[in-house]
Each structure stands twice: as C-alpha cells, then as structure tokens.
C-alpha cells in the first residue's frame, strides 16, 4: 500500500510568487492534516480535513494560505503571495476514518524556500 505522498519535494521561489503544494493521502483515509515546521522550531498544525470539509483550520497563519481538498481525495495548499517567513517544511498526514487513537501517517514533506 502506498504511503502519503507529497509534491514537490523541494520548491524555491521568490517573495511575492505563488506556490502550490500537493498531498496525496493513503487511500481510504478520510482525515488529512497539514503541518509546518519552520527551521529549528516545533512542527505546527495548520489544518485538518475530514473528507472535503475543513474540520479545523485554527492553525492557518493568515489569508495568504488556501487549502483545498476537492472530492475528498488529494489536497493542495497554496501560498499566495509567498513571504520570507513562509519558508519551512510542510508536512501532510492522513488517518483512517473515525480514528479514535489518531495514528497519523506522515508524508516526506515539501521543503519550501522563499527568497
């Protein structure tokens, strides 16, 4: 069974540009999460989808970030326009529907560098 995949693995963009990150969860996993780690700091929650609905988006830093999960399968996270402080590693995770024990499976992450 394929794990969580993320694309691209690395992205280097100029300040003010737009970047879209993609996450493909494990097949059948209704729960999809986005996290971000800024260099040297903790991994921070961004948002949580249940199927195509946003369950919790309390961690989204501002309105420059837009997450979608059309059809309840893969998800995209768009940053527009990107700022220097958006640099970091963006992780996606998924878990099975109705998961009480909340075991989340993580992708390898996308390293975003904003110059």
């Amino acid at each position: 069974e394929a794990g969580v995949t993320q694309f691209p693995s690395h992205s280097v963009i100029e300040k003010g540009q737009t970047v879209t990150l993609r996450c493909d969860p494990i097949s059948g996993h209704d729960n999809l999460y986005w996290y971000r780690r800024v260099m040297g700091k903790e991994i921070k929650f961004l948002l949580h989808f249940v199927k195509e609905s946003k369950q919790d988006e309390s961690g989204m830093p501002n309105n420059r970030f837009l997450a979608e999960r059309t059809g309840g399968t893969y998800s995209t996270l768009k940053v527009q326009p990107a700022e220097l402080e958006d640099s970091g590693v963006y992780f996606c995770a998924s878990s099975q529907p109705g998961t009480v024990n909340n075991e989340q499976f993580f992708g390898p992450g996308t390293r975003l560098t904003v110059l």
Partner: protein
Amino acid sequence: AQSVTQLDSQVPVFEEAPVELRCNYSSSVSVYLFWYVQYPNQGLQLLLKYLSGSTLVKGINGFEAEFNKSQTSFHLRKPSVHISDTAEYFCAVSPTGTASKLTFGTGTRLQVTL
C-alpha cells in the same frame, strides 16, 4: 490547549550506550501521547504511542517509553543504541476521543557515534 516540551535539542551518545530522550507535556484534558522519528531525508514515522492501560509502552526498533501522569512525562528510552538510530525524535500529544491535531515538541536530535 496542549503544549509539549523537549528540553534536549541535541543528545550525543556512543553506540551501544543507553539513551533517554525527555518529554514533558501540559494539557487541561486527557491526551494520547506519541513519539515520532524522522530519519534523514524521510518523513515522520511513528515509534510508539500511549493510549491507555499499561504505562510502559514498547515500540519499534527496541524503543520504549513510560507514561507518568503525576509528572506529566513520556520519556523515550533505549537500552543500547545503534548508529542507525541517528535521527530526530519528536514527542507529540493529541486530545483523547477524537481524531484531531497533534501538538509537537521542538524535537531532539540524537547523534550516535562509534
């Protein structure tokens, strides 16, 4: 709200020596506790988790952790480390009873040398 503290940002240790990585948490509700590991150039992998029951939890690769409710700790231990254990280790918590976000500590980088 929850918070997790990993006081040791880096832990150097010789191969075959024991190691303990410390994790303390704060929460106003009951939580599940997790340890994740990130090997170089890879994603996060679950090492072990505490949900309920026995406070001593065994995970993969010979790691174990003990939940101490009175001290709000969940320290990770291994009696004898290997070079391949070199990685970054993250402690995390989430509220019980529902699928929800993980709150992570800042991570501990374990460096195993000969």
